[in-house]
C-alpha cells in the first residue's frame, strides 16, 4: 500500500446490504477491500471474486512427499537390515504400501495445516486494529483501503448501503505484527528442533537390558527375586521324586467325583489314548510302531500301584513314555488317575 492511503471500515448487520456495498465499491474501482464475517458465505467470496486458494497445492505436495518417504523408509531400511521374516521377500511391497498409505495421509494433512497457516498468516496473538469483537457474533465488517481523495466517495457508498457505523482506522501497527508472528513461528520451530535433538541424544542412552547379567536377582550372595504369584506358566515347580518315595508319600487329594472322572476322561483321550488305547490296554493307534510296547494299564502290576505312583509316572514319564507334566497340571493328572482307576475296575469286572 502506498503512503497516504487510509482504511475505512463499515460495520453491517445485514448480509445483503454488505454484498451490495461490495459490488458498489468494486464497480467504483476499489480493489483493496475485504470482509470480516462470523460465518463463511459463498456470496461474499463471489462478490470479491476470489478463485480457489493455493492450500490444495500444499496438500498435493505433502501427500507426494509422504508417499515418497514411505517408500524410501520401508524399502531402503529393509535393504539395509535384510532380515527375512515370514518367508517374505526383503522388499515386500504389499505390506509396505500400508506404511506408504499412512504416511501419505499424515504428510498430506500436516501440509494442509501448514498451507492454511501460511496463507492466513496464523498463528498470531495480537489482532488487527480494525477488528471488532462483534464480528465473531452477528456483525459483518467491510474494510476498504483508499487514497486520501477517494475517502469521501467510499464513505458515501458505505452509508448509502446502510452500514451501521463507518470509521477510519489507522494502519500504523501493520508491519511489526508480521515480524512478531515470524519470530513466534521461528521460536516454536527452534524448540521443536531442540526436543528432537535431545530425544535423539537421550533415547539410545536410556538403560536397556541387553544381557541376562543385568538382572538384579543374579548378583552374588543375593536371593533371587521371587516370581509374582501366577506369573509362571505352570503351577510352580514340582520337586522331582523317586518313584518309591512318591508311592509312599503322595496321597490323592482329588476325590473321584463324576466331574473329576469326566475331566480325567477328556485328558486321558488327548494325552494317553495314542499309545495306551481308549481302554488302557496298551493297544493305541501308534502302539505297534513302538519298539517297547506300551504297558497294559489294566494288568495286576499296574492296578497294585498307589495313586501317588501313577501320578508321578504320568508327570515324569516312564522308561519310554515321555513326561506329561507340561501339558497336564497336577490337578488334571489326579483326574486322569481317577479315570484310570475306573477303567481298571471295568476291565477287572469283565
Amino acid at each position: 500500500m502506498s503512503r497516504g492511503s487510509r482504511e475505512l471500515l463499515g460495520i453491517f448487520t445485514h448480509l445483503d446490504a454488505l454484498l451490495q456495498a461490495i459490488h458498489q465499491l468494486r464497480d467504483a474501482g476499489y480493489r483493496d477491500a475485504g470482509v470480516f464475517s462470523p460465518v463463511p458465505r459463498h456470496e461474499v467470496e463471489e462478490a470479491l471474486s476470489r478463485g480457489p486458494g493455493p492450500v490444495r497445492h500444499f496438500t498435493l505436495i505433502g501427500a507426494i512427499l509422504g508417499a515418497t518417504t514411505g517408500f524410501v523408509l520401508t524399502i531402503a531400511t529393509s535393504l539395509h537390515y535384510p532380515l527375512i521374516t515370514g518367508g517374505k521377500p526383503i522388499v515386500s511391497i504389499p505390506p509396505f504400501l500400508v506404511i506408504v498409505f499412512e504416511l501419505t495421509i499424515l504428510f498430506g494433512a500436516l501440509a494442509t495445516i501448514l498451507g492454511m497457516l501460511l496463507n492466513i498468516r496464523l498463528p498470531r496473538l495480537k489482532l488487527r486494529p480494525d477488528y471488532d469483537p462483534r464480528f465473531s457474533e452477528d456483525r459483518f465488517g467491510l474494510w476498504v483501503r483508499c487514497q486520501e481523495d477517494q475517502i469521501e466517495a467510499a464513505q458515501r457508498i458505505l452509508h448509502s448501503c446502510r452500514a451501521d457505523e463507518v470509521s477510519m482506522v489507522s494502519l500504523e501497527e501493520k508491519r511489526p505484527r508480521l515480524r512478531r508472528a515470524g519470530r513466534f513461528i521461528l521460536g516454536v520451530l527452534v524448540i521443536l528442533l531442540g526436543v528432537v535433538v535431545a530425544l535423539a541424544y537421550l533415547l539410545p542412552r536410556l538403560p536397556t537390558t541387553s544381557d541376562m547379567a543385568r538382572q538384579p536377582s543374579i548378583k552374588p550372595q543375593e536371593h533371587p527375586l521371587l516370581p509374582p504369584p501366577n506369573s509362571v506358566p505352570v503351577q510352580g515347580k514340582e520337586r522331582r521324586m523317586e518313584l518309591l518315595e512318591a508311592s509312599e508319600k503322595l496321597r490323592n487329594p482329588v476325590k473321584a467325583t463324576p466331574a473329576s472322572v469326566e475331566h480325567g476322561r477328556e485328558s486321558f483321550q488327548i494325552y494317553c489314548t495314542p499309545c495306551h488305547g481308549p481302554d488302557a490296554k496298551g493297544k493305541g493307534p501308534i502302539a505297534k510302531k513302538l519298539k517297547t510296547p506300551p504297558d497294559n494299564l489294566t494288568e495286576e502290576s499296574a492296578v497294585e500301584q498307589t495313586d501317588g505312583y501313577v501320578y508321578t509316572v504320568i508327570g515324569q514319564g516312564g522308561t519310554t513314555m515321555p513326561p506329561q507334566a507340561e501339558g497336564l497340571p497336577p490337578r488334571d493328572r489326579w483326574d486322569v488317575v481317577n479315570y484310570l482307576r475306573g477303567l481298571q475296575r471295568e476291565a477287572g469286572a469283565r
Partner: protein
Amino acid sequence: MIQLSYSQINRDLLKTMEPPGKLYYAILALDLAVLAWGIYAWTYQFRTGMGVTGLNNPVGWGIYIATFVFWIGIAHSGTLISAILFLFRCRWRNPIYRTAEAMTVFAVMTAALYPIIHLGRPWLFYWLLPYQQRGHFWINFRSPLVMDVFAVATYFIVSAAFFFTGLVPDLAVVRDKAVGWRKRFYTFLAQGWEGTDREWRHYSSAYLLLAALATPLVISVHSIVSWDFALAIVPGWHSTIFAPYFVAGAIHSGLAMVLTILIPLRRIFRLETYITPAHLENLAKLIILTGLIMGYSYGTEFSIAWYGGNIFEQATFRYRAVGDYAVAFWIMAVANSVVPLLFIVKKIRMSVPWLFGLSLVINVGMWCERFVIIVASLAHDHIPFAWGFYRPSWVELSVVAGTFAWFFLWFLLFAKFLPVVSITEVKELVEPPLTGGVDP
C-alpha cells in the same frame, strides 16, 4: 431448525461454558477416584510384572487388547460424522459433529494407552518406532503391529488437527466474550482468528481437504487393526472378511457411543433446540444400517466355517457359540445384530429413553464382540494340547475401569472448556440476517 438469530446462538451455546455446579464436581471427583485406582493397579502391574494379569499361555491377548480395539472402534464414528458426512453435505451433522469429534480424539488417546499397558516392559515402548536402537534392532514393516503404530499415530495426529482446525473460529467467539484469565487463555488458543474473507477462504478449503484425507484414513485404521488378527493363522481370525467387518463394527459401536454421550449432554446443557430428536433419529437409522452389516458378518463367518470344511474353523465357531465364552457370544450376537433392528419401529427411535438404553446395550455388545473374537479364538486353537481358559484378574479390570475414567475425564474437561456444539457451523445452518427485501 427453527430460525434463530446469530447472537441468540452465541448466547445459548456459550452458556454451556458457564461455571459448573456441584453435580459436575461430584462426577469429576468420582471419575478421578476411579482413574487413581486404575493408575494404582497399573503401577502394581508395572512393579510386579505381567503375572498379575490373567494373561498366560495360551491366551496372551486378553481384555487389554479387546478394549484397545473397542476404543479405536469408538473413535471411528466421530470421523464418520465430522468428515464423511461433511463430504456428503449432510448438513444435519453440524450441531453434533463437535461432540463426536471430541469423542474421536479422546477415544484414540485412550486406545493408545493399551498397547503400552500391555507391554511386558512398557518403558521400551519406543522400540516400535523406526529409530535405531542400541543393540541394532530395526522394526519389521511386514508386521501388522508396526503398521498399527503408524496407523494409530497418524489417526491421532490427523483427527486432533482436524478437531482443532474446526475449533478455531469458535475459540475466537469465546475469546471475544471472555474476561480475565480466560481472555488470555482463549486469545492464545484462537491463534488470532478474525474471520476475514481471506481466512475463511483458506480455512474452508483446508477443512474440506482434511475431511477428504480423514475419510480414507478412518477406513484404513480399523482395517489395519483387524489385520493384527487376520494375518495370524489362528482359526476364527484368519479371514478376509475381517477388515470390512471391523470397520462396520467400529462405526456401529461408535454411533452407539455418540448417542450415549449426546443424550445426557443435550439434557444437562438444555440443548434441545440444537440437538433435536431428528438428529438422534438419524443416528439411530445409521445404527440400523451398521447393525444389519454386523448381523450379515456374523452369518458370513459361520457360513464360511460350515461351507469351508475346515474342521478347526468349525470347532472354533462351535466353541464360541456353546463353549466357555458362550454368554459373551450371545450378548454380542443379540445386542449387535438384533437389538438395533428395534430402531425400525419409529416410536422406539423417537423415544430418548429407548435410544439411551439401547445405545448402552449396543456398547456392551460391541465390547463383548472384541472379547469373544480375541479370547475365544486364542483359548481354543489348533492344538488341543494347548487349550486354556482366560479370566481377567482384578488388575486388568481396574486398569480398564481406569482408562474409561481417563476418557470421561477428558470429556468432562471438554464440556466446560470448549463449546460442545459448533457455534460457527450452527450459524451456517440458519438464514443470514437480511434487510427483508427493502431496497436501501
